[in-house]
């Protein structure tokens, strides 16, 4: 009976194709909505896991959450460094993770933080060691994969949180060195570059206390990175340098060959010290470069160490009652609860998506109606054929099933085409709009609700075929054949 149903569908290709197309469009729309809804909320939940409260500069709480938890928006501003101690000293707080944002490398955000950030995201090192000293950095798995970073390589961050081809404000004077690469987590940390808060301050020429809590004591003498130089004195000057490539393009790795006469050289070795036993041409180049940046160094004393946000985890429930109120009323900062803001965001998105969802279901019903019209006409035109089947030995149920199968097969084709189209579109959209990837939209990742959707579309096909099927079920073969 299935073969016969398929033969009948092939017999009227245009009608079948149109019905399939109608259903495919509606299924594609619904799958896209499902994928977006479920993957985004799943991603939001996963990235916000363990973060009870985010403290940042006053502004939009949603923006604060998006920038500090999901890393997809600009921060609301900066907050005083002292806020970290304020919260860490609160008995209701179990953990406070500082965030200092402001730079990117090839579009990937450089996040100044401490080791608790790795704990918060359940991240573990796949290679190397975590950042310990200033200007050490740990690459998220996706960053490492995209940039081809390896341990020991150096890179220069650019100002701003997104890759900008017009932005030439690279922090050439303070290159980072890759000390570790994280294993993939599937979360936001995969596309971040982690370093110490002090590194971010260092890059921006901000004077800071080197005995910062949570970091090893680390001595600086002006711009002379004595400790770093000591730490990295094994490095060869002709090692591979990791540098930003063309905007939005691949990162180029190249062997830095320093020409002492090339004073405009963009890429510099990271660590340079007067104590270095053999002062090379490369270090001379760095010295020359740093000499040309007096303005930045002069500003150091004027700039206060600040943070972008704090990720807070409560020790007990009393924190949830007291701390947000305290932050919002008694400080110049704001607090935002990720769960609340995420729910609000999904609600906002949901309201606009509901309209599309209703339209898509109406389209699916229209597809069902088109199947009904096609099959009712078929039942009229083919009643001779179907009467013949009855005479040849087909039971009423078999003839009934043939028509139902035509409806279900049409719906199944529509569902399959729609599903493939939706996931294909996600693949294309992800390539075209990286933000979708940042939101966690992954193609070819079926969600359980899709099975329900496909079942509903099949039911529409079966229901549309029900009346025509009942019509042929009641056929009187003798009368029909005599009439024909």
């Amino acid at each position, binding site marked *: 009976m299935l*073969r*016969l149903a398929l*033969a*009948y569908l*092939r*017999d009227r290709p245009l009608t079948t194709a149109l019905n399939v197309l109608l259903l495919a469009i509606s299924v594609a729309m619904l799958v896209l909505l499902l994928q977006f809804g479920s993957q985004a909320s799943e991603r939001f939940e996963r990235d916000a896991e363990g973060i009870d409260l985010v403290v940042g500069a006053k502004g939009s709480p949603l923006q604060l959450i998006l920038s500090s938890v999901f890393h997809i928006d600009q921060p609301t501003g900066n907050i005083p460094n002292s806020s970290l101690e304020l919260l860490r000293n609160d008995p209701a707080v179990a953990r406070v993770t500082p965030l200092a944002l402001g730079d990117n490398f090839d579009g990937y955000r450089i996040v100044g933080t401490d080791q608790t950030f790795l704990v918060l995201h359940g991240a573990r090192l796949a290679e190397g060691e975590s950042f310990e000293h200033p200007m050490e950095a740990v690459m998220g798995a996706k960053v490492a994969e995209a940039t081809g970073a390896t341990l020991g390589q150096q890179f220069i961050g650019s100002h701003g949180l997104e890759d900008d081809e017009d932005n030439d404000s690279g922090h050439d004077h303070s290159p980072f060195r890759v000390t570790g690469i994280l294993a993939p987590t599937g979360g936001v940390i995969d596309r971040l570059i982690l370093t110490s808060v002090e590194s971010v301050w260092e890059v921006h020429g901000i004077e800071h206390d080197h005995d910062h809590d949570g970091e090893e004591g680390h001595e600086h003498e002006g711009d002379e990175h004595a400790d770093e130089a000591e730490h990295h004195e094994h490095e060869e000057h002709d090692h591979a340098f990791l540098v930003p490539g063309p905007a939005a393009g691949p990162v180029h790795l190249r062997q830095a060959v320093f020409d002492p006469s090339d004073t405009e050289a963009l890429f510099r070795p990271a660590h340079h010290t007067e104590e270095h036993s053999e002062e090379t041409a490369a270090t001379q180049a760095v010295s020359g470069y740093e000499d040309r940046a007096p303005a930045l160094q002069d500003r150091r004393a004027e700039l206060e160490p600040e943070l972008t946000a704090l990720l807070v985890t409560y020790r007990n429930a009393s924190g949830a009652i007291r701390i947000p109120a305290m932050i919002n009323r008694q400080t110049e900062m704001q607090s935002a609860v990720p769960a609340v803001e995420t729910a609000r965001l999904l609600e906002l998105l949901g309201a606009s998506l509901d309209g599309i969802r209703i339209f898509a279901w109406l389209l699916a019903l229209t597809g069902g109606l088109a199947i009904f019209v096609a099959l009712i006409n078929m039942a009229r035109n083919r009643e*001779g*054929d179907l009467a*013949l*089947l*009855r*005479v*040849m*030995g*087909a*039971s009423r149920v*078999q003839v009934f099933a043939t028509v139902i199968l035509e409806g279900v097969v049409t719906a199944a084709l529509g569902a399959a085409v729609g599903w493939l189209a939706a996931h294909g579109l996600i693949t294309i959209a992800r390539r075209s709009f990286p933000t979708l990837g940042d939101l966690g939209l992954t193609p070819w990742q079926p969600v359980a609700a899709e099975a329900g959707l496909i079942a509903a579309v099949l039911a529409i096909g079966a229901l549309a075929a029900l009346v025509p099927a009942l019509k042929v079920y009641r056929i009187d*073969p*003798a009368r029909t*054949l*005599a009439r*024909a």
Partner: protein
Amino acid sequence: MLLTVREVGKAYDGRSVLSDISFSLNAGENALLLGPSGSGKSTLLNIVCGLQKPDAGSVEVDGELVAAADRSANSDLVRKRAMGIIFQTLRLVSALSVRANLALAQRLQAGSVDHEMIDDVIERLGIAHRASARPFELSQGEAQRAAIARALVVRPKLLIADEPTSALDRTNTETVAKMLFEAAQEAGATLLVATHDDRLRPFFERTFSLENGRLQPC
């Protein structure tokens, strides 16, 4: 007896179409049911096939009740098991090729397809080269042969044909008649053909004439 028709009667709106029809055919026998249009031939064939219930009498095929006025009969099953039917309008399924039409008939009858037998039958009937063609691509003669082939591939004990030559010229009429006769003989089937075409009479062992709803042996 393979086919037994006992005192069958049928009336439409009080007008008698068939009255007290009785005859029987042995296995392998062939018979022609001759009568003008509207004489009740098709009604009698429908009753023999179990497609219509008689108002009186009964029909048995191979010892099983096909139709009866006073009893219910499992006509679908008997028809499926023992009969091959060739309709006046041929009735090939338009969406299927000749081969697929034959396969469908076998599948409906036996639940499986005997491709070897299909090949053999279409070869014998001279339409092997048209096996992949759809019904609308066939000539009248080819369609006629395809319809006969479909009736034969189910290995019928009783082969029934309703006006099989109505649209054919003399040459083709003889060809089809011979083909039917030989096919039934080769299959060992009993052949019952209803027609108004007197030209078929010489091909059959027995001929019944249906006039005014009554059967008269010729």
